């Protein structure tokens, strides 16, 4: 029984009674184990072995090397039992404080647990929400979808720019063909001018010949005049046509040059714009990937944190287990006290509290077992 008490006390971290009882047994058995009171023998099972008394033994001074007289041993036993009995209220008060204080500590931890749990849950929820937003942005196609669509549009714009550049090149080739046509037309116009010039010489000669034949040549002279006028007009027309073709060729060249220049500039700008957009998109992709990784880590941390929180709740239940162990020990102490009172009835003054004795014992216990004093460990009585 005694061993059970000691074990229970050690198990709940309260060794006040352990030390107390051991000290009393030492005092009672000093030099002679048969002096141990019957009540202790019953609980210990076997008589405790004598141990050397230390300097702080309470009642060492009452024993001498000589065999103590029976009445002296009896008196010591009576005092020991009185000490034991009247120490119980203080010991039980300490045990009660263990329960009260550990419960207060546990509740404080639970309160903090709730705060941390709420924050962790909130952070986790925010991370999940942000993760979901990344996945659902852009009418449900997600950021990845948006990025891919943007990349596709950039590629499409690049193809259109390239097509425009190819169109400019084709126009340049067609312009060259057109220039050749103009050259050929000019050549024909020049030939028409030459023909007109030669025809003019013929008409002059015709006029001269008509003049030679006199009156008969008059109709031919009219024809020659008409032909000369026609040749003059034809020559003039061919020169104007040649000049016009040259102007047209020059205009066409300028037009095509300007257009091609514009196309090249636009293609270049579009290419630069696409490059910048693509770089921006890639930066955005990196940032989003980082964000996604952060969110994932946050979510994982939240889950791990919730697991740890559950572990904390599990461990905090040991406060209740300890409380019940302390209550069990308290029950044992009450039982022991009752038995002490019953067995020593008529010999031990237990019916009337000796306030001076109780106060002295409390002071002694406080002094000797400071570690277990409620003021030093438990933060004051409550």
């Amino acid at each position, binding site marked *: 029984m005694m061993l059970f008490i000691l074990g229970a006390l050690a198990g709940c971290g309260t060794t006040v009674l352990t030390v107390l009882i051991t000290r009393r047994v030492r005092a009672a058995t000093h030099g002679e184990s048969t002096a141990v009171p019957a009540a202790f023998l019953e609980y210990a099972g076997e008589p405790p072995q004598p141990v050397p008394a230390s300097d702080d033994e309470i009642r060492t001074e009452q024993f001498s090397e000589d065999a103590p007289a029976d009445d002296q041993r009896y008196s010591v036993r009576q005092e020991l039992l009185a000490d034991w009995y009247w120490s119980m209220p203080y010991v039980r008060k300490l045990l009660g404080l263990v329960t009260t204080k550990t419960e207060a500590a546990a509740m404080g931890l*639970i309160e903090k647990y709730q705060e941390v749990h709420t924050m962790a849950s909130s952070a986790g929820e925010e991370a999940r929400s942000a993760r979901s937003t990344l996945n659902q942005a852009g009418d449900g196609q997600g950021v990845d979808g948006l990025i891919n669509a943007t990349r596709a549009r950039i590629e499409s714009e690049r193809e259109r720019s390239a097509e425009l550049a190819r169109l400019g090149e084709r126009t340049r080739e067609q312009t060259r063909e057109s220039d050749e046509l103009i050259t050929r037309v000019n050549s024909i116009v020049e030939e028409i001018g030459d023909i007109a010039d030669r025809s003019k010489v013929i008409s002059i000669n015709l006029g001269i010949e008509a003049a030679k034949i006199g009156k008969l040549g008059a109709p031919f002279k009219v024809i020659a005049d008409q032909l000369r006028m026609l040749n003059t007009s034809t020559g003039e027309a061919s020169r104007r046509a040649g000049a016009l073709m040259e102007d047209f060729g020059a205009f066409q060249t300028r037009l095509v040059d300007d257009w091609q220049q514009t196309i090249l500039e636009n293609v270049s700008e579009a290419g630069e714009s696409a490059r910048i957009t693509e770089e921006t998109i890639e930066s955005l992709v990196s940032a989003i990937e980082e964000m996604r990784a952060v969110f994932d880590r946050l979510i994982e941390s939240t889950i791990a944190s919730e697991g740890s929180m*559950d572990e904390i*709740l*599990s*461990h905090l*239940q040991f406060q*209740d287990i300890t409380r019940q162990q302390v209550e069990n020990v308290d029950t044992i102490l009450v039982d022991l006290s009752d038995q002490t009172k019953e067995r020593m009835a008529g010999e031990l003054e237990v019916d009337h509290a000796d306030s001076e004795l109780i106060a002295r014992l409390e002071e002694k216990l406080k002094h000797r077992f400071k570690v277990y004093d409620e003021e030093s460990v438990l933060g004051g009585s409550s």
Partner: protein
Amino acid sequence: MRVLNVDDSTTMRKIVTLALQAKGHTIDEANNGQEALDYIGREGDPDLIILDINMPVMTGMEFLEAYSGTSTIIVLTTQYQDDLRRQALLKGAKAFLTKPFQKDDLLAVMSELGLE
């Protein structure tokens, strides 16, 4: 789901309440078996009773003997003796858990009992 959490330990009541509130259940508390009976008299049978055994005024075992309602009862106690467990189940408890319990274990037992 409405749950009555019966335990004389403030710490345990809080822990059980936290574990179940996270699942959206409504939790009420009683300090011992007698308070639990009084609560049921006022509010009717909850869907689930989480019941400690070692309590002052009226123990969990005494509550099981006195209770004749329809609530599902899960015993949650520090005491684990085969005889105690057998007696609790005979008196109407549907499950017997010992402290310290893991939240997931309690939820798994509730799930097995059809209490989601």
